[in-house]
């Protein structure tokens, strides 16, 4: 079992990086605030404030990693409480930091890729009018992601969870002048919120059962939970994860998120934020390991998403949307891994994917930068000659993502497939995994071929851009990421004995083999063959430019291009009925309740006017009324006397 599961959390010794770890998150947050408040006055220095704070976080992360590595495996789960946060009645939640191998690995990825993208943004956002605001949001994101990753209790994790949602809202809608960007941002936030509701309800259940939300208490108590709660929490956390990591059913926001600047897509929608879902499930491994059937559900969701996204990616024509669907697909892979219980095998691709997907996005950014922000790959082609570095690094990225042997992608994908193959009931998922491997290689090769190879189609455009290589500040990160994509495999050559597996042991539950659907060697061979076939097909087919779609295939391609019309489905199934419900309620509110209230008002005034009509103004009708009164009175008196039986004694004793 892992350190946390046995409750072996150690209080951080004073002065140790773990004790300062919370600064890792706070410094970027503070610098974001500073940039937002006085950014404009800082002028050119603004980006550097952001870069410095990102650098500071990276150094602190590295220091923590080194420090943690120095400790024995058992004592690598270190907790440091900064302050009490929410002492609401029975709920006790503190601002506390959990520094353990998983958290440190994630923070390294976040700060590392983050810093590179900060540097990249220097060049990319050069002529943008609102630089301080952009870098403030980037820093805000960095801080929030670190809060998420380092959070000691589920609630602090949730704080980071929603704050990154806010940052993605702000960054997707960064160029809010165009309406589509703004609505894409809103769509992202709302759909993330749907996922967050699942997360919150899971927290309620856990708090109800365990009485605390701090991971140090929740994870050890995971075994004791009742079956029903476990299943419910498992599914709800899955719902939360699908929201954040763009899995079925909540993946529709990621493709639209491409409306944001490319560095944002690279950092948030490829490397870091979208992996939060995988991190959450990995973090809750002690819980998921109790419910293997729910694990299979997670894996199934991952496989389905991977397949669907891969199919859609094949038909996309925008340089960034292909990558977006590719991200969704690769995340599906990671869900498959953590689903079947291979948590370290899930985190490994998380890191490698972070490298090569960020690389691909930055390359795409560099291409768009050169092509005056045009994104349609059908109008590109032959850019290798004009953008050698970008082209080269993009090639490495493509090979890595396709799982070309010895690249980082190869190792991570192979481990996932191996883990799935060793899980009972994983046959279908394995098959899908292999198909997706082929598709991935194919659409990435297509992407590469259309952009960098073949005839230079952009020259026939009315005023053709003349592409030139991006400045060093953009190409340097590309090169670094390319190196990481190639060398990344070193991190975890073998699922059991790899460096990463060992490193993550205290944080996540180890993988138990429950079946052997296919031998690892054979599996590896098949994977390599599929990768090569996919790559070759992609390059050969699209080297000469985009291919005409045959009449019979046209509807299928159109369906794929429209992303299986999932958006329209949601609009019809949820948005329109919701709209009409709201309209109905508003009508009910204005006519119904208000109607009743005003009705009461009108009724009283109606009564009043009716009463007033009695005042005819004729003196004689008043006299008549008086007369009626007198007659009734006297008749009454007479009646009373009669009843009294003593007749009318007027004269007698009164």
């Amino acid at each position: 079992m892992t350190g946390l599961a046995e409750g072996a959390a150690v209080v951080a010794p004073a002065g140790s990086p773990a004790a300062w770890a919370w600064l890792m998150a706070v410094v970027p947050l503070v610098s974001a605030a500073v940039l937002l408040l006085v950014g404009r006055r800082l002028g050119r220095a603004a980006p550097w404030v952001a870069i410095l704070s990102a650098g500071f976080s990276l150094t602190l992360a590295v220091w923590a990693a080194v420090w943690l590595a120095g400790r024995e495996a058992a004592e690598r789960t270190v907790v440091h409480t900064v302050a009490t946060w929410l002492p609401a009645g029975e709920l006790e939640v503190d601002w506390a930091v959990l520094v353990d191998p998983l958290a440190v690995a994630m923070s390294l990825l976040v700060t590392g890729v983050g810093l590179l993208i900060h540097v990249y943004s220097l060049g990319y956002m050069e002529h943008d009018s609102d630089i301080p605001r952009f870098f403030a949001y980037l820093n805000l994101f960095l801080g929030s992601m670190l809060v998420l990753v380092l959070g000691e209790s589920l609630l602090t994790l949730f704080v980071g969870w929603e704050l990154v949602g806010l940052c993605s809202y702000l960054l997707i809608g960064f160029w809010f002048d165009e309406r589509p960007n703004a609505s894409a941002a809103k769509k992202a936030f709302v759909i993330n919120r749907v996922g967050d509701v699942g997360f919150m309800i899971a927290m309620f259940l856990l708090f109800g059962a365990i009485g605390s939300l701090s991971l140090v208490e929740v994870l050890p108590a995971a075994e004791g939970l009742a079956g029903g709660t476990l299943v419910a929490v498992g599914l709800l956390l899955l719902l939360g994860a699908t929201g954040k990591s763009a899995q079925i059913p909540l993946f529709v926001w990621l493709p639209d998120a491409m409306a944001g600047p490319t560095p944002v897509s690279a950092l948030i929608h490829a490397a870091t934020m979208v992996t939060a879902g995988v991190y959450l499930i990995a973090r809750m491994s002690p819980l998921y390991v109790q419910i293997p059937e729910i694990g299979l559900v997670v894996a199934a969701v991952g496989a389905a998403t991977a397949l669907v996204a891969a199919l859609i990616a094949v038909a996309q024509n925008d340089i960034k949307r292909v990558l977006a669907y590719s991200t969704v697909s690769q995340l599906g892979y990671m869900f498959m891994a953590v689903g079947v219980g291979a948590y370290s095998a899930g985190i490994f691709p998380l890191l490698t994917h972070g490298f090569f997907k960020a690389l691909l996005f930055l390359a795409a950014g560099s291409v768009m930068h050169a092509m005056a922000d045009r994104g349609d790959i059908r109008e590109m082609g032959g850019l290798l000659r004009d953008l050698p570095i970008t082209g080269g690094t993009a090639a490495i990225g493509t090979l890595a993502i396709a799982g070309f042997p010895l690249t980082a992608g190869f190792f991570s994908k192979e481990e996932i497939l191996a883990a799935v193959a060793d899980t009972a009931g994983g046959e279908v998922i394995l098959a899908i995994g292999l198909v997706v491997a082929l598709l991935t290689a194919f659409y990435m090769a297509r992407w590469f071929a259309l952009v960098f190879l073949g005839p230079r189609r952009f020259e026939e455009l009315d005023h053709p851009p003349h592409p030139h290589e991006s400045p060093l500040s953009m190409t340097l990160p590309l090169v670094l990421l390319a190196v990481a994509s190639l060398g990344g495999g070193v991190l975890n050559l073998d699922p059991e004995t790899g460096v990463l597996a060992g490193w993550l042991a205290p944080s996540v539950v180890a993988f138990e083999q429950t079946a052997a659907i296919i031998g690892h060697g054979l599996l590896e061979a098949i994977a390599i063959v599929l990768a090569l076939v996919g790559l070759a097909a992609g390059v050969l087919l699209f080297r000469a430019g985009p291919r005409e779609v045959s009449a019979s295939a046209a509807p299928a391609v159109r369906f794929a291009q429209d992303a299986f019309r999932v958006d329209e489905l949601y609009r019809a199934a949820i948005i329109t009925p919701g709209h009409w419900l709201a309209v109905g309620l508003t009508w009910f509110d204005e006519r119904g309740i208000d109607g009743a209230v005003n009705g009461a008002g009108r009724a009283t005034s109606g009564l009043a006017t009716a009463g007033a009509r009695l005042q005819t103004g004729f003196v004689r009708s008043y006299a008549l009324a008086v007369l009626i009164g007198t007659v009734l009175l006297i008749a009454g008196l007479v009646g009373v006397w009669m009843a009294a039986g003593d007749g009318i004694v007027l004269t007698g004793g009164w």
Partner: protein
Amino acid sequence: MTPVLAQATEGGAAELWTFIIVGAVALGSAFGLILMRNAVHAALMLVLNFLAIAVLYAVLQAQFLAVIQLIVYAGAIVVLFLFVLMLLGVSREDSLTARVPGQKTMASVLGVLLFVSLAAATAGPFLGDASVCGSEEALTGTGDGVPCLGLAAVNAAEGNLRGLGFLLFTDYVWAFEVTAVLLVIAAIGAIVLGRRQEDPSELVEPGSTVLPARRGSGSAATEPGAGPTDADEGAATETSEATPSEGEERT
């Protein structure tokens, strides 16, 4: 006291007959009053009614009241009515059509109802033989009904007038004084209401026969109240005499 009156009060057949005749006259004149189209005729009917009641007073041994009735009511009040009638010249036919539908039928039904209940309320116990004032059943208390002793004895002692006077100035002296004051106030009231704004243009040289045309009031003096003048023409001529309301609250 005239012998006829004295004789009538002794009871016996004479009283019955006088009651029947005078009662009929009173009722007839009352109906006349409410049914006559012409207001002046109605006033005359009223006079007749007052006379009949005066006789009844006499029969009921209230001789002083009978005289007062004649002087005050028949003499002064009705004359005043006639005077006003003539002054305002409203002796034209007063159409009986009431504005409020069903007013007449409703009124008469109510009148009957009122009559029945009043009669039952007041006259109930006094219909028996003993109630014949001065009759021996009353004195011996044998007949049914409430005995009516009659005022013979009382009047006999000092006479009706002296008895009344005596009472007036002992038990009811305060009431008497108050009524005196009341009369004075009434007189002043009538003068004030009757006052007209002394408008210089209206000063009439003594002896000229032409009445100055009242400013804006459509010289009411000559204009016969031809038929029911519609309300707005009348209302429009808000004559200056209407006492201007002092410092009316600005709304």
